[in-house]
Every structure is written in structure tokens, then in C-alpha cells.
């Protein structure tokens, strides 16, 4: 029983990270029908910069804030210089490869700066564990899924009630019509990438105290975030959060009862199976083909 509760609580924590990363893919996809394969590296960038900031003697809060902002700027720049030049081409090869290239370069640079080893980010959230039904968990871990849900809700509120949020939805629906209505589509796409990257970097900062920070931490987290977005349905923000949390919990159970290697095998196999049965994801809407 204790073990099960332990798995659920730590699963929700890592699942919250997948949800945040997945939401980033959702935002980018909605705006541009393209994503950013360096999104996992945005997460890594957030975590690494926060650690480096603390190293440099900044207060923790300032270091985290600056790391998140840097992540957002990275997203905007990436969109402008790696994605937009290839947005008009028929296949997605262009932006996929340029963003992968940037990801490889960022990871190499981070390895050079940060070294090949892993370090945790000190945070008050992991100073002492709390015990719930005998399962030990850090307050930081409890906060992560709450943040993921809050981000999803505020994203929804923003899309419904603010001018820029409505513009984002208009662009997601029909770029050309949005442009004819006077919406600056390029700016909205850039904003979306920035927002997605803010969430990505924030996920990095949030997870940094719990797991070890390293230059290579982003790849797998980013990929699982994408897997979660695919399973949940890339058009559905609530679907992504639900699946993200569920995916995290499932992973912890597999890891606990079988092994770490099986965790990856089963997790990704689930993604492929879901695609087979629900091509649009569990909660996604079918995109109507316009002829």
C-alpha cells in the first residue's frame, strides 16, 4: 500500500513535468502546425541556467526567474531563425532538422559549460520530505502536478478572455483568415513559441531539485512530453495534462515492479498502440480535411 502511494505521488510529480512539456508542444503545434524538436533542450537549458545562476551567487528565485526568461527568449529566437524559414515548405523535414541541429548544438555547448556530470538544484522544496500514508515525498514534487494543472487552466482562460489568446485560437484555426482579420500571424506564432518555451524552461527549473541536472537530461523528458501530447491528442490541452499525469504514474509502477529498462519499453509501446487505435489521440479532435 505504501509502495503504491509512493509510486502514485512520485508518478504525479514526473507526470506533471511531462504535462508541462506536452502543453508546450500543444501550443506550438496549434500556432504553426510545426513544433520544435529542441523543446527538451529548452527544459535542460532552464535547469542548467538556474544551477549556473545559483553558482554565480544569485538568490535562488532570481536565478530561476532568469533561467525561465532565457528559455522563453530561446524559443522566440528558435522560431524566428530555425522554424519560420521552413514553414512554407510542403514537408516538415526542414524545421525538424534545423531544430534538431540546434538541440544538438545546445546540448554540446551545455556539456562544455556544465561538464559531463549531474548536479541537483538546491531548493527549499526538497529540504525535508513530508509523509503521506507512510510514503515520503518532497513538497516540491507535490507542487509540480498542481503547477501543470494551473498552467493548463490559465492557458484556457487566456485563450478565452484575452485579445492575444483569441488571436492564438484564430491562427490555430485558419492562418490566412486570421491574417485577413488584421492579426499579425508571425507575431502570434513567435509569441506561442516563446510561451511554450517559458513553460518548458519552467518545467526544467521545477524538476531540477528533484532529479539531477545534466546536459543530457532534456532529450528523454522532451520525447516523453511529445509522446504524452500524441497520446492525449495534440489539439487538447486538458487531454495532455490528464495523460501526462497518468503516464508518469504508470512509469513509476512499471519501474517499481519490473525495471527501468521496461519503463521505456512499455511507455513508448503504449504510445504506438494508442496511435494505432486512436490516430487523433485519446482526447484529440479529428482535423477536418478541407478540399
Amino acid at each position, binding site marked *: 500500500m505504501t509502495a503504491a502511494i509512493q509510486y502514485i505521488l512520485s508518478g504525479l510529480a514526473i507526470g506533471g513535468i511531462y504535462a508541462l512539456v506536452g502543453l508546450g508542444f500543444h501550443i506550438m503545434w496549434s500556432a504553426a502546425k*510545426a*513544433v520544435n*524538436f529542441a523543446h527538451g533542450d529548452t527544459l535542460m537549458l532552464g535547469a542548467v541556467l538556474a544551477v549556473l545562476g545559483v553558482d554565480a551567487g544569485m538568490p535562488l528565485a532570481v536565478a530561476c526567474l532568469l533561467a525561465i526568461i532565457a528559455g522563453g527568449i530561446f524559443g522566440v529566437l528558435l522560431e524566428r531563425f*530555425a522554424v519560420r*524559414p*521552413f514553414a512554407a515548405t*510542403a*514537408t*516538415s*523535414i*526542414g524545421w*525538424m*532538422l*534545423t531544430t*534538431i*541541429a*540546434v*538541440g*544538438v*548544438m545546445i*546540448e*554540446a*555547448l551545455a*556539456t*562544455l559549460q556544465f561538464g559531463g556530470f549531474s548536479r541537483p538544484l538546491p531548493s527549499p522544496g526538497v529540504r525535508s520530505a513530508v509523509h503521506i500514508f507512510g510514503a515520503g515525498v518532497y513538497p516540491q514534487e507535490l507542487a509540480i502536478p498542481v503547477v501543470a494543472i494551473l498552467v493548463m487552466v490559465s492557458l484556457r482562460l487566456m485563450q478565452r478572455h484575452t485579445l492575444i489568446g483569441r488571436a492564438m485560437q484564430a491562427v490555430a484555426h485558419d492562418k490566412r483568415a486570421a491574417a485577413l482579420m488584421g492579426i499579425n500571424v508571425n507575431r502570434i506564432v513567435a509569441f506561442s513559441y516563446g510561451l511554450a518555451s517559458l513553460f518548458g524552461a519552467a518545467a526544467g527549473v521545477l524538476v531540477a531539485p528533484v532529479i539531477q541536472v545534466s546536459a543530457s537530461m532534456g*532529450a*528523454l523528458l522532451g*520525447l516523453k512530453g*511529445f*509522446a504524452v501530447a*500524441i497520446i492525449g491528442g495534440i489539439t487538447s490541452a486538458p487531454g495532455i495534462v490528464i495523460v501526462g499525469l497518468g503516464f508518469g504514474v504508470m512509469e513509476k509502477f512499471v519501474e517499481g515492479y519490473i*525495471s527501468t*529498462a*521496461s519503463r*521505456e*519499453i512499455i511507455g*513508448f*509501446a503504449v*504510445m*504506438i*498502440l494508442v*496511435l*494505432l487505435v486512436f*490516430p*487523433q489521440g485519446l482526447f484529440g479532435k479529428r482535423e477536418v*480535411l478541407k*478540399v
Partner: protein
Amino acid sequence: MRYLIPLGFFAFALILAAVPLMAANEYALRLFMLFLIYGMIAVGLNVLVGLTGLVSLGQAGLFALGSYTGAILATRLGFDIVACCIGAAIVSGAFGVLLAYPTMRVKGVYLAVVTIAFGIIVENVAIEWQSLTGGTTGLSSIPRPNVFGIKLSGFAFYGVLAVTLFVFTLLIQNLKISRYGRTMLAVSQSETASRALGINPTGLRMLAFVVASVTAGIAGTFYAFLNSYISPDIFTFSDSVRFLLMVILGGAGSTFGPVIGAYILTYLPEYLQQFQLWQKFAYGALLLLVMFALPRGILGTFRLAFDRLRPADPIPDVAEGLPVETTLRHKKEMWTAELVASALTVRFGGLSALSNVSLRVKGGEIHALIGPNGAGKSTFVNTISGFYRPDEGRCELDGVELTGRRSLEIARLGLARTFQNTELFGELSVLENVMAGYDQRLSYGLLQALLRTPRMRREESECRRAAIGLLGFVGLSQYGNEAARSLPFGLQRRLEIARALAGKPRLLLLDEPAAGLTTQEIDDLEAMIRRIAGLGISVLLVEHHVDLIMALADTVTVLDYGEVIASDNPAAIQNDPRVIEAYFGTSPERAETAA
């Protein structure tokens, strides 16, 4: 130009034969053999990337799968290299199908993600399944390569690899210039148009992915024999990126580009090793550089420059073309292709785009469908051609039920269509567009395409001649070699008609063919539609242009707000009060009497 490719193969064979004679030492030869193995992966991946425009980032996973299969078969069961290759091809091909099927129905990006995930699955299975794969320590003591019990010397193994790469390159070149290559390119340009021509996009993408999987699997087996040791950590994500980069750097879609890319990226790491930590960064930077500076790759860029310098290809000879009368005419008893739509209702959310629409296009007639904007004309066209599903009602063509069938099946049943906002295969030539339309009439299969059998050549030449004839029919003879996207709008519309006709349809659906045409072009169009109907092809014409309709149509059906308000001969329609009202509103006098 025609001699360039055979010359390339000749030079390729010479190089492959000369290298072992010139290799300085065993290490140099080994490195070259590694290049041959990478070349096989790149050549296979080129079918996926260069022809269908999809990306796999899991080739290292398939390569590993082939490696392990080959190694296990060799060490456990003592299979020789041929049997190992066959085993690896079967296993990796099967996994290719398993991976591709769920992804092909959705977005291209998903394939990239699924393939990355597959690479991770393979790696972890290799770690976890210790009894079979040796876990993290891997499999060692893989025997020296042997064929039918005879051990191969280093040079003989080199020969096997060189011949295999040469044959792969040749077979894939054959695939590229067959119906498969043509339709794969078509699918990457416009999936919608492909479906409307009876081309199966899912099937073609699967085929491309399976080709890429099988070649990677076979390459994997060779790698296991070359290295005589394999472990999970030699098949990483960055290898997958490298395989993809080979194709892009060399020139996606070109015959020898992937081989050149594989050569460069086999030798480059040897030089980059001195930069140590910067090696990975350099990789990323190279990828970025290629994407911006050489998006077409080395051979693609070379080809572009070469095309500018050399004289243009001769225009396809009009005399070669088959007259449309022979390629399109149906037998007299087939003339009665009737389209019957009964009580069709289509709703989008709460809006009824079509309610209870019944329509009958009699065999051999020209039937016009008119109505104000938003009347539901395009919805009707999209519904009977299978792009939308009706909520109620049904339609049939000559007694064959169309409702519930996919658009590509409907196209194969003899219903061809054009699109309101032309959907051409922009990068294909004008002639290739029409040949893609002819695809459903070709009957040769994959094996015949790979081997270029006489039957394949005969059918291809017939297809080409029919396409030339059709281009003559629509007046585009002198544009045969131009890229379809470079044609002016009016000519693009004609090309769409030629392409739709190439499948020898029994019913042709024209969705606003006169929109945006000049008066002269509309007169030509009128004559063209008349000739089409004269060949025994029924025509359903969706149009706004009243003069054209009055001149052509045998029957006119008028839609308004998703309902049929009149259906009669043109003269009667012109005087129908409801039709006048739909177009011009109620006259003041009638409005008064009504009040």
C-alpha cells in the same frame, strides 16, 4: 541527360572495383566497408525521405534490430550470411510495417517521433533481454562471414558488400522511375489530389518505410559480421540523425546523393575526432549549415546548376501520343454510367450544408449544378467523391454503391474530379502529373518495377504515350517538361482536367472549371467539355458561369441553402421563378402581391 544515370552507375562500379586494389592497409579497407554499409542504409532511407517526404529518426533502431537478428542467427543457429540477411530483412521489415501503419494515417511529424521512440525501445529491449542479447555486454564472437559454409576472406566480404550496395542503388533507381516513385512524389505534394486519382497514400508510405527498414536491417547484419561484436550502446539517436543527414547532405531524392552523403559522413568523424568535445557541436552546426546553404544537398544543387547550363530536354513528341479517342473511349454499352444521389444530407455541427439532395446524372449527359455561393455545391462534390461522409442518404455510380467508400476507391470505380482551387503536384512535371493520373490503369507490381521487366516497360510507355495524347487534347503539348507549379493559372486548370481524364473515368466532376479564366479560355473549355462528353464520359459541371452552362448543359440542377430547388433543361431553368429569386431576390411586384 538520358545517359547521365547509366554513366553514373558505370563510374560507381569502377570505383567500387578499384578501391580494394588501392587501399593502403586493412584499416583503410575496413573503413571503406563501413561506408558501404552506411551507404545501404542511406540509399534505402532515401526512398522515404526523398520520395515520400517523410522523416525517420529511428534508422539506428532498425539497424540495431538487423544487427542483433543477424548476430543471433549466426551464433545460435549457425546460419550463413545470406540466411542471416534474409532473417534480418524479414524481422526489420515486419517491424517497419508495425511502426508505419499507425503513423501513416496521421501526420508526418508523428513518424519522426514514433521512430525515435522505436530506437529507444530497441535499445532497452537489447539491454533487458539478457538471455538472448547478452544485455549491456552485448554479443561477441560473431563468426567470420561465410556463404554456404565457405568462409569469406576480407576481400570476398568486401565484394559482397560492394555488390549489395550497387544492387540496392540500382533497384531503388528502378523503383524511383516506376509508377511507385512517381506516385510517392505525388503523395508528398498533395495527398488530397492523390486520393482523388485512386492513388493509395497510406500504402505507398508504408512501402517506402518498409524499403528503408529492410535495407537498414540487412546493413545491420553486415555490420555485425564486419565488427564481430555488437552492444546496445553503438546504436544511438545521434546515429539516426547521422543516417538522415547522409541523405539530406548528398541530395534527397537523387540516385547517388545518399551514397555521397554516406561517404562524407563516414570519413568526416575521423577528422572531427581531434576536436573531441566540440565534435558533437560540429555535427549540429553541419546539419544546420546543410539545411540553410544546401537544402537540396550536394547532388541536388549540382543538378540545379547543371540544368541551367544544358539545353532544355526536348518537348515530348506529339506524334508519340495516343489519340484520346483510343485511350478514353468506353465501349458503347458502357456509356450509360449513371450517377444517382438520393436524399443526401450532410451536416457540419448544427449547420445542414446539404439536406435531402437527390440528383441524377444520366449516362453521357452534361449535367450542370449551379447555385449561389454557399448553396452546398462543393459539399455535394466532396460528398459524392468520398471526401465527406453523408449523414443520411446514399449515392451510387452505375448501380455500385459509393456511400461509405474511401475517395480512392471511388476514383477507381470511375469517378474523376478536379478541384476548385487546383490541387496539382507542383514539383512534378506537367507530363508526370498526367502520368500519375493514369496510375490506376497500370497493373505491373513491385517486383516488375524493381526488375524493369518487359511488361513494366510496355505499360510505362503506353502510360507515357496516353499522357502525351491527353496533353495534346487539352493544348498543353509544349509544356510537358515544365514543373506544374510554373504554369499560369488557366493552364493549370486544363492540366487538372487532363490528369483527371487519364484514369479513363466514366463520370467527370468539374468543380468550377471556368473560375478565373478569360473569355477565350472559356470558349476553349466549352469545346473541350463537349468533346469529353462525346467520348462517352458523363460530366457533372459545377459552375457559376451562366453562358457556359446554357451552352453546354443537357440538364441543370439548382441548389439553394443545401436544397434542390429546381432540376430541368436549361431553358426551363432560366425562367423558373424560384431560381430567379434565389439569384436576384424577389421582384418588388411579387413582394407586394405576397404582402
